[in-house]
């Protein structure tokens, strides 16, 4: 039987900060919108995040960070994704990311940014519209 598989999303917390309120709310909202959501928990290294993305075969990675270390950690994550050939995964980010940092992060392939005050349905819509379609035999 051929069926459209559910969008699989990894919500990941890189870095050492522990502000997980937003990440958990987004995880729940995406799940309520019919996606399969894997949440890594706190304090994940770029290596761990990419490893989980491979093992869970996800379509989307949502990175949540509020510690200010995004300019160090995001490039590392994007580099590892490239090395492992995960170039078709949609990567989006949320947390405290100053506007002026966004162009550089877009250049390295992060597609969407959702700062404080974003309604959850906006994130859902963005993911539905931008996730590469995949079909699989189930």
């Amino acid at each position, binding site marked *: 039987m051929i069926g459209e598989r559910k969008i699989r999303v990894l919500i990941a917390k890189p870095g050492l900060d522990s502000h997980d309120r937003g990440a958990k709310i987004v995880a729940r909202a995406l799940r309520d919108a019919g996606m399969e959501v894997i949440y890594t928990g706190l304090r994940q290294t770029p290596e761990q995040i990419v490893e989980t993305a491979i093992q869970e075969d996800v379509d989307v990675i949502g990175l949540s960070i509020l510690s200010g270390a995004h300019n*160090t950690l995001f490039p590392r994550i994007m580099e590892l994704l490239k090395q492992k050939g995960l170039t078709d995964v949609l990567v989006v980010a949320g947390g405290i990311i100053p506007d002026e940092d966004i162009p550089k992060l877009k250049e390295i392939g992060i597609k969407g940014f959702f700062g404080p005050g974003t309604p959850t349905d906006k994130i859902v819509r963005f993911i539905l519209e931008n996730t590469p379609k995949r079909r699989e035999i189930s």
Partner: protein
Amino acid sequence: MFDREEIDKIIKERERWEKTTLPKWINTRPERKNVFTNLSGIPIKRVYTPEDIKDMDYMRDLGFPGEYPFTRGLHATMYRGRLWTMRQFSGYGTAEQTNQRFKYLLKEGETGLSIAFDYPTIRGYDSDHPMARGEVGVCGVAVSSLKDMEILFDGIPLDKVTTSMTINGPAAMLLAMYIAVGDKQGVPREKLGGTTQNDMLKEFFAQKLIIFPPKPSVKLVTDIIEYCAKHLPKWNPISISGYHIREAGANAVQELAFTLYDGITYVESCLERGMKVDDFAPRLSFFFAAHNDFFEEIAKFRAARRLWAKIMKERFHAKNPRSMWMRMHVQTAGFTLTAQQPLNNIIRVTIQALAAVLGGTQSLHTNSFDEALALPSEQAVRIALRTQQIIAHESGVANTVDPLAGSYYVETLTNEMEEKAMEYIQKIDDMGGAIAAIEKGFFQKEIADSAYKYQKEIDEKKRIIVGVNEYSTEEKYPIEILRIDPKVEEEQIARLQKLRRERDNRKVKEVLEKLHYAAEKNVNLMPTIIDAVKAYATLGEICDVLRKVYGEYKELIVI
């Protein structure tokens, strides 16, 4: 507080009013909502009257300020005597930079310092640990060894200031470093004044900056309380914190109940160790958030004081009234700050700060309006401090004690907050206590559910946040962002590595072995940790020894 006859008359009048006056108004001018609720979901009535507080007894439930049950305040004169302490949290970059900032604040008249540590320090990692990459000095100051602490307090006599340290997992190590600096400056330990947050329980379900599992974590907390009771009489060994519980998503009732339950757990842990309640309870302190719902917050602070006093008296049989004191620090709720139209946050912070003052706090931190975007700029920090000063000197609210006492609404709400918190406390008792509740994921689930509910209400516009889901504009507010130079990380790592080369490494090995032995023997670790930091063993090395003995906590994920 009213006689029966008077209440009966009021009830009759209310019934008449509901039949005559009220319908006319409702028919021509329907109410904005069918049900009004506060953030804890408590329904708010249209109007409150003496009927709502008919069962209250003035002396039993309110009394006079400075007397049990302390609903009206801890001190008889409150802010007529002394204003609350205005204590602003700061720290960034290297120890040198934060030392400069401290000296500036002291010159400006502050006497209370409050240190923000960076994430690697908070997590018990040295600055050169692989997990520390990109985080050194970013969200606070990096302290990896006594060397850094010496620089942090260079030229600042520890008997002239009080220092609050927001530190939990490695609280024992940072306090040991502070004591060691005091020893070097020749300041007697009994003169050291300040606070270590040192509240690990809330870390497991709210702030989640954790190193060791719950039981050894509470053991270390208790070590500090016990050590301070004996040697640091002016130190607040713990600040039992609801702030992070609220920020993680709890509502006001949950914040109140879970914080008090954590307090109960620490008291029990100290009693189990054979300490006498009146020997340590007077030094316990608390920390709450001030959120948006003005009267709910005021009621929460008043209820918190009364409930803690009752718990200490009835549950733990404290005799010294000071053991029944809930001394509190309040910070305006960071979560309520919006990135959109950031200047609006000045108004939010003002209302929140006013609630804290009307609630009778001992100390207050007001957030800066730009903190939803980055670390605060100097201008924003100044406005935050000025907000407190305007409330203190211009508004007149500090001229009398507990001005809202006797308000039918505020007293009803105070009673409701207390009752609902007691229901939770009963429930957690039945569950087997705080650690059992953590292990079951009870707190985590309660908080996650409340956080999600709050977000849904905003998404569905059941709750209006000005500038976010209503009254929004496209206009962007330009802000200057405080950036941490990546050189900070390099410099800090270089200093640390130099220290490791130059110190007496045989001595370090010896103190760390002693620590390992002491940790296995289950004795109070404070003296051994002080010896270790004095030999310049690093924070990471000390934590690693304890990681070996206690294990590392693995997060229980509850979405």
